Structure formats: structure tokens, C-alpha cells
């Protein structure tokens, strides 16, 4: 079969979600998959790999190389090697948007600002402190206390007309502050947008540490949140690259690394003849 071993997989085992991506030998994205990580990273990453193969109609024998990334990368037992999600997000963002020079990745427990060169390689990076403020967990917590689904908070926040200022930098205290603001009579939409604006401010602080150079590509699970996109674009005064695939950037980057590693291994393997 011509297709044999000509696909490359990336599995991104994050703190909240596990993502997978499959690319062909030209780096075209063939498929993606996502599910909650849950308590067992090994099970979650195997499940995502299986899902990815099912969705794309592939078998394990079609895959030449697997790269694991994310916090659980060392637990991805079927992977060939591991690369940090910092390098993977940079690589993935560069594939989706080749003019990317700055990447903002907002995940469940991490926010990263990454400066990349013209080849999608990491030049510098900065991450949030050991604290959930300014990460996806901040929105999750707020959604929970407000009895909302994670997926609806961003959309709702767009209806804000007079955003409130959420000043607490602590994700736990911000939950209390959120309720307090509602008790003061502010609308749900205004409070929600305030949460997004507060996170955007922190994220931009991180971006400034590495230097903001357009184009900026917004990746990670939070890049699916329209409220966050608006808050960031408003404060930055420029557009961000984002689409339905940017949340898979870590996995996509890992898959591209898989392709690169496999081909360099082939070259080193001495097929000079």
C-alpha cells in the first residue's frame, strides 16, 4: 500500500483536555480530535489516538511517528519522543499562519507568550506564574459559580454594554468578586466581559515580556472563546489569528515535529545511495 507509514501524529495531553492531530507527509492536517483528560493521562492519550485514527480511517500501521506534548507528554507510552508544548504551539501556529511572530497560548492551567522566528521556532517564551489567574481555569471557575456552561460565557460576554472591572488577580477570589459585582446590580454580561478583560490584561503583560510582533496567533482552548478574542483585540489594538483549528495547535505542532523527526531519522539512516 502506498499509504503505509506516511502519516504523523501529535498528541497533546493537557491539564484539562487531550488533543490529537494527524498530518500527512506533506504536513497537511488530515484530522484532529479532542476529549477531557480526566484522571488518567495514559488512558486519555490512548483514547484520543484511537479516536484520531477512527475519524481519519487510519490504522496504527499507517502512522510512522508519534510525538507527545503537554504536561502528560512523558506518560504517552506509545509515542516515539516528547517535545514541550511551547515548541509545539509555536510550530503549529506557524503552520496555520506562516506570518506568525508571536503566539499567545491560553490553556486550562497555563498561559504562554511565545516569540517565534520565520521558521516557527521558539526564540523566547514567558509563562504565567504558578497561579491559575489569567488561564482557562479562571473562566471555568467563574462559569461554575454563575451556573453557566463553559462554552456559553464567551458568547454572553459579547452582549456587555458597560463592562465592570474585576480587580482580583486570584482565580479563587475573583469568583467571590464576580458574585459581589452581581449583587451590586451589574448585569451578568457586564461581569462576564469584565472577567475576560481582566484575563486579557494579564495575558498582554506576558506578551510584552517577550515582545509583541505581528502577526499574533491565538492558540489553546481559550482561543475558541469569542469574549476572550474581543477583549484581547480591544486591548492590543490589533487583530489576532484564530480559527477552529488553533485550539489544536499543540497537537498539530507535535505532528509536524513527528514528520520532521521521522524524515531526519531517515536521512541519518544512511539512505545516501
Amino acid at each position: 500500500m502506498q499509504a503505509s507509514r506516511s502519516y504523523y501524529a501529535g498528541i497533546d495531553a493537557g491539564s484539562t483536555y487531550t488533543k490529537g492531530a494527524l498530518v500527512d507527509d506533506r504536513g497537511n492536517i488530515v484530522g484532529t480530535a479532542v476529549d477531557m483528560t480526566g484522571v488518567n493521562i495514559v488512558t486519555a492519550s490512548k483514547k484520543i489516538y484511537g479516536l484520531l485514527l477512527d475519524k481519519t480511517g487510519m490504522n496504527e500501521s499507517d502512522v510512522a511517528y508519534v510525538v507527545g506534548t503537554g504536561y502528560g507528554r512523558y506518560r504517552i507510552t506509545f509515542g516515539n519522543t516528547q517535545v514541550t508544548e511551547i515548541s509545539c504551539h509555536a510550530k503549529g501556529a506557524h503552520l496555520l499562519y506562516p506570518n506568525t511572530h508571536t503566539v499567545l497560548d491560553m490553556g486550562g492551567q497555563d498561559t504562554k507568550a511565545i516569540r517565534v522566528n520565520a521558521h516557527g521556532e521558539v526564540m523566547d517564551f514567558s509563562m504565567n506564574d504558578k497561579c491559575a489567574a489569567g488561564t482557562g481555569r479562571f473562566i471555568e471557575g467563574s462559569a461554575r459559580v454563575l451556573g453557566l456552561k463553559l462554552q456559553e460565557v464567551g458568547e454572553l460576554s459579547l452582549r456587555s454594554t458597560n463592562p465592570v472591572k474585576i480587580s482580583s488577580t486570584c482565580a479563587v477570589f475573583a469568583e467571590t468578586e464576580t458574585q459581589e459585582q452581581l449583587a451590586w446590580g451589574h448585569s451578568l454580561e457586564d461581569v462576564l466581559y469584565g472577567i475576560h478583560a481582566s484575563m486579557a490584561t494579564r495575558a498582554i503583560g506576558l506578551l510584552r515580556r517577550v515582545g509583541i510582533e505581528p502577526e499574533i496567533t491565538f492558540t489553546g482552548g481559550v482561543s475558541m472563546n469569542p469574549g476572550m478574542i474581543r477583549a484581547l483585540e480591544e486591548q492590543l489594538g490589533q487583530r489576532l489569528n484564530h480559527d477552529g483549528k488553533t485550539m489544536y495547535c499543540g497537537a498539530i505542532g507535535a505532528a509536524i515535529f513527528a514528520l520532521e523527526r521521522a524524515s531526519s531519522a531517515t536521512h541519518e539512516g544512511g539512505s545516501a545511495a
Partner: protein
Amino acid sequence: MASASAEAKTTFEDFDQAKRMQGEITKNYFQRLLTAQANGQKVGYGFVMANPIEFFNVFDIVPLYPEVTSLNISYRGGAPPLIALSEEVGYSTDACGYVKMGVAAATDKTSTAIGVLPKPDLLYLTYSGCQIYIHWWEQLHYQTGAPILTVDVPYVREYDGHVDAHDIRYVAAQLEESIPVLEKFTGKRFDENRFKEVMRLSSKAWELWGKVLEMGKMRPSPLDAYFESIYYMAPITLIRGTQECVDFYAFLLEELKERASHGVGPTAREDYRLVFEGVPNYPFFKKFWNLFRQNNARGVVSTYPKVAGMIDTGSFHLNTDHPFESIAEYMIHAYCNWNMPLRTQLLEKYVRDYHADGVVIHSIKSCRSFSMGEGDMREYLAKEKDIPTLLIESDHVDPRYYSEAQIKNRVDAFFETLALRRAA
């Protein structure tokens, strides 16, 4: 015969005997400390930065450095109960871990991982570079009633190879004034001959320690001048001014030369040469070291050992002809007593002089004097000088602030960027 014994050395451990020697020195020192008061000796509390231990030696006062006892307790996993005790009496989680452990360890009958520490007979306050030193000693004074003897050391605002003469005179005069105070405190006369001998031995130890640190310039470096220096720097603080201290550094220097001639070092290979800034993490010290060791990275130079004295900058030389002035200069040139631009320039110079691939800043939250401004250092080195610089955060003694997964992520990503730069 000497060459025969050298040839018998086969493993890295054979070239790693100085650490064993340091372990013995530290053990003996703690033994001496814990039995000092029972033996009729006075215990003087001092700071690592700017301690004129030469005077303690002359007056036969046994030094106790709460920074050193705390790091040793923490290294042995004993920090949490002391930190909990200090927080019970009202210390904030943000307060310096050394202060909290030091205060707790001086509380009645508090047992620590290295024993029940003697309370101070004297609190020698060499105020240099760390503002909390003053309040720490005040607290210990309230707790124990021990007298405080203060030597105020001016901050280094500008430095072009010299600090202002009046700064040196200011410190030297205080040291001269402290002599009659120490005579009265110990009931002993100041023995000038003994002082000269102690100064001679101190000076010799400094010279050898300086040469040890210079070995990091070799490529490959025969030592890890951050992680191994944590061990090697102990004698210069604990037993400086003794022949034993001189012998230790002479042995260490020879051992490193042997390592170099046999091509061995603290990692299998030397793939990366790093400059380290900041205090290490003691509760997880070996795990922390492994994050770098497994990438075959060696710390070739670091700022942390310079808290005990900036011997590698040529800023001071102990001199028996000008003992008070030269000790004053040593006290002025403690690393945290240098201002932030000077510290940043030093890091940049280290990268150049030691042919380093990058800088790692380990910032510890509870220490303002060391960690304040490190974000700016990172920014300057990375943005202005294009030097790969990693900033990671935890704490020196409090295990609650160390998060292995998060730190490993940052360290791994840093090595990925270093590898990319090399490939380019």
C-alpha cells in the same frame, strides 16, 4: 607513586572527594556549634553576606549563620515544621523562609533536622544588601535578649573598580569600634598576632576559592559552578581563617585540575554551558539539579556563591597591612549589596567570559534582596542582548512553592530553544 594512584581513578566518584571532605567539615562544624555553649564558648549569630568571621576567630566565638542552618535543615527535608511554627505565631507566607526558619529554630527547645540550635549570645548585624537582616536580628533580640552589634555597610551604588574611599572608611571605623565591644563581651584581649595569622589564612583561602571558580572558564568545565558550588562554598563561610579551610580549597583545586586532565566532569558530556543567577531550591535540590544534568548542562559560573564574597571580580583582597579597610571592602562587595544594573552587567560579562549558551534565573519569592528586579534582568538579557534567558520561580526553603511539572516544562522548553539556536 602519585601517578599510580591517579591512574587508579576510574569513576567520577574518584574525582568527587572534595564534597566528601566538605561534608566532614560541615558535620564537624555543627558538632562544634551544638556543643559550644556547654564548652564555655560564646555563640555569635552572623549573616553569610559580609560576615567578618576573622574577628569571631580571634575572640573564639563560634559562628551560627541561620541562613546556613536553615538551608541545611531544608536540604534534609526539615523545613515544613519550622515554617509552620513561624506561621502559627503570625509570620506571613510571603516572609523570607530563612527568617521564618531562623526565628522558629531559636524558639525554646525547638528541635530541627540538625539538632536543637544554640541561642545567640551575640547578634552580629552586618547590614549588607538585605534590609530584612535588621528586623530579623531585632526579632531574635526580643526573643532571646542577646545584644546586637551593628556594622552598617553602604550599598554599592556605582562601581568602576573602586568604591568611594569614605564608604570603606565608614565600615572600617565601625569594625575598629567593635573591637573593644567584643573584648568586653568575651572578656578576652584582642590578640593582634592571632588576627594577622587569621587574616593570612583567610586571604589564602579566598585566593584558592577564586581559582576554583575560575576553572569554570575551561571548556569543558570540570565543575558545575552552581550546583556543586553549593557544597564547595560552605568552608569559606563556616571555617574561613583556619588552615583546614585553606587545605580544603587546595585539595578541591587539585581535584578539579585532575578532572580536567582526565576529561571528566559532573555530567557525561558538556552539551550546554549555563550561567545561573539566584538562590537554589534546597528541599528538592537534587531533583532540581537533575533537570539540568539530564540535558548534559553544566553551570559554568553563578552569582549565588558570591553572596559570601565577590572574589571573582577582583573587588577585594584581604591585606594584613590594611586589615580593617580590606575587610571593609570584602563586606561591601557581597553580591546582593551590588545594585541591579551592576548585577545585570555582571551576568552579561559572565556570559561572555565563560562562553555560556544562556542564563538561568531561579527566582525565590520570599527573598526580596535577591529576587527583586530579576524580571528586568531577564528582559534586558533576552531582549537587548539576545541571550537566551530562562526565569523560573520557586523558593529556597519552602517546599510548597516547588512545582516539578511546571518547572520541568519551562526547563525542557529552554533546552529546546538552545538546541535550535545551536542548529542555526
